[in-house]
C-alpha cells in the first residue's frame, strides 16, 4: 500500500508539471520525480523556482505553488498556480500564468509494473496579450498561452523505468495576443496576433538511479514533444495565416537530482536543454537552458 501511494505521489507532480503549457524544453523540464517509499502522507505542498534562457535575449524567472491531495491509494488530485517574469529587449513583464488542475488514477499494481492515468485542465490567468506601455509583446513575454487545455496522460512504470505519454489539447482559445512583427521593431519574433495553437503529444522516458547509502538519487530522462500541426495568426489584413515550420518535434535532455531530508521534506534540482527543436516556435516556448529547483513538504 505504501508503495502504491508513493508511486501516486511521484507520478502526479511529474505529469502535472509537464502539463504546464508543455510544448518545449523549458516547461517540460519542470517534470520531476520525488522518490521516497516513506512518503505516505495525504497532502503535499510544493514550491518551485526556475531560471531559463530563451530565444533572442529573453530570460525567464518562473515560480509555481502546488497542492496535492491523496484521497486514497488510487486517486489523487493536484492544483497548481504559476507565475512568470520575462525580461528582454522589450522590457520586463511579470504576471500569473495558469491554474492547473489534475486528477490522477492509479490502477491496481501488477508484478514489477504499475499503470496510472491522468486527466487535467489548464486555465489561463491572461489572454496572452500583456503589454508594456501599450506596446504589444510577443508570446515569448507572455506568462500563459491563453488557452484552456485538457491533458490526457498515461504512465507505465517498470522497475526503475518510467514511460509517460501526455496529450495536451487546447479546448478553448482565449488568446488575444496582438503582436505584429511589422510593428515590433525587430525580426526576432514572428507575428502572433490572435494566435491559435495546435495540440501537443509528449513522450517521456526516464530512469531513476538511487545513490547507495545516501539520500540522493539521480534521474536522467528524455522528453520528446510533437506539435501536431501548424499554428496560425491573423495578419494585418485580418486574414488567418499559418505559421510555416511551427509544427514538428522537440527533444529535450533532462536530469533530475533529488535529495530527501526526511519523510516530509525533499528537494529536486532539474537541468534541461533541447537538442532537437522546431523550425519556428511562435508560442514563445523557446527555453534553451532551464534550471529548476523544487521543494516539497508532505504532511
Amino acid at each position, binding site marked *: 500500500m505504501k508503495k502504491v501511494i508513493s508511486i501516486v505521489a511521484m507520478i502526479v507532480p511529474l505529469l502535472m508539471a509537464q502539463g504546464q503549457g508543455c510544448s518545449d524544453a523549458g516547461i517540460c523540464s519542470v517534470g520531476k520525480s520525488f522518490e521516497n517509499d516513506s512518503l505516505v502522507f495525504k497532502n503535499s505542498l510544493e514550491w518551485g523556482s526556475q531560471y531559463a534562457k530563451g530565444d533572442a535575449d529573453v530570460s525567464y524567472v518562473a515560480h509555481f505553488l502546488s497542492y496535492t491531495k491523496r484521497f486514497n491509494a488510487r486517486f489523487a488530485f493536484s492544483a497548481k498556480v504559476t*507565475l512568470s*517574469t520575462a*525580461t528582454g*529587449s*522589450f*522590457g*520586463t*513583464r*511579470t*504576471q*500569473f500564468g495558469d491554474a492547473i488542475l489534475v486528477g490522477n488514477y492509479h490502477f491496481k499494481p501488477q508484478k514489477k509494473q504499475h499503470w496510472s492515468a491522468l486527466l487535467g485542465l489548464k486555465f489561463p490567468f491572461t*489572454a496572452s*496579450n*500583456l*503589454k*508594456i*506601455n*501599450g*506596446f*504589444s509583446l510577443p508570446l515569448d513575454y507572455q506568462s500563459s498561452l491563453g488557452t484552456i487545455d485538457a491533458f490526457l496522460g498515461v504512465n507505465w512504470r517498470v522497475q526503475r523505468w518510467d514511460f509517460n505519454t501526455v496529450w495536451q489539447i487546447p479546448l478553448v482559445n482565449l488568446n*488575444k495576443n*496582438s503582436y*505584429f512583427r*511589422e*510593428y*515590433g*521593431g*525587430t525580426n526576432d519574433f514572428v507575428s502572433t*496576433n*490572435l494566435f491559435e495553437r495546435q495540440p501537443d503529444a509528449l513522450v517521456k522516458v526516464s530512469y531513476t538511479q538511487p545513490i547507495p547509502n545516501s539520500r540522493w538519487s539521480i534521474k536522467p530522462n528524455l522528453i520528446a514533444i510533437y506539435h501536431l500541426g501548424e499554428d496560425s495568426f491573423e495578419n*494585418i*489584413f*485580418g486574414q488567418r495565416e499559418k505559421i510555416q515550420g511551427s509544427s514538428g518535434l522537440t527533444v529535450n535532455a533532462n536530469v533530475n537530482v533529488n535529495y530527501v531530508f526526511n519523510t516530509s521534506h525533499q528537494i529536486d534540482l532539474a537541468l534541461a536543454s533541447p537538442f532537437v527543436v522546431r523550425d519556428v516556435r511562435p508560442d514563445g516556448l523557446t527555453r534553451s537552458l532551464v534550471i529548476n529547483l523544487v521543494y516539497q513538504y508532505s504532511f
Partner: protein
Amino acid sequence: MKKLSILALALLLFGCQEEGVLTQTPNSTTVNPNATLRYFGDFYPTAGIQVEGGVRIYQTPGGFQLELNGFSISSGPDLKVYLSQSDTPTNFVNLGNLTGQTVYSIPNAVNLSNYSHVLIHCQQYNHLFAIAPLQEN
C-alpha cells in the same frame, strides 16, 4: 476570516503583477516633412464612447503615413487603428495599437483608394469605438 483570507490572496495575486519599462523603440513617430496631405476626416463615436479629433493621411517619398490630430478617446483595453473599406471592421488593415504615438506607417502593399474609413477598434473584445470617414484632399 474566510473573507480576509480571500482578500489577502487577491492582494498577493495582484501584487505580484509587474509591468516594467518599455525598452524597445516603437516605429515612426513623426510625419515626414516632405509629405503631401492626401486624405482627411473627423472621428465620430459609437454608443457610449467619447472621441475628439481627426485623421490625416500623407503621402511621403517612402509611402503613406497616417496621423491622428487633436485626438482623444475614451479609454479601452486593446484599441487598434484600422484602415477600413467600410464603417465596420470587416475588411481592414490593422495599423497597430492606439498608444501615445500619433503617426502610423501604412504598409506599401495597401492600395489606399480601396479604403474609405479609419476606425478605432477594441480587438480583444471586438468593440468598435470610433469612425472617421475619409475625404480626398
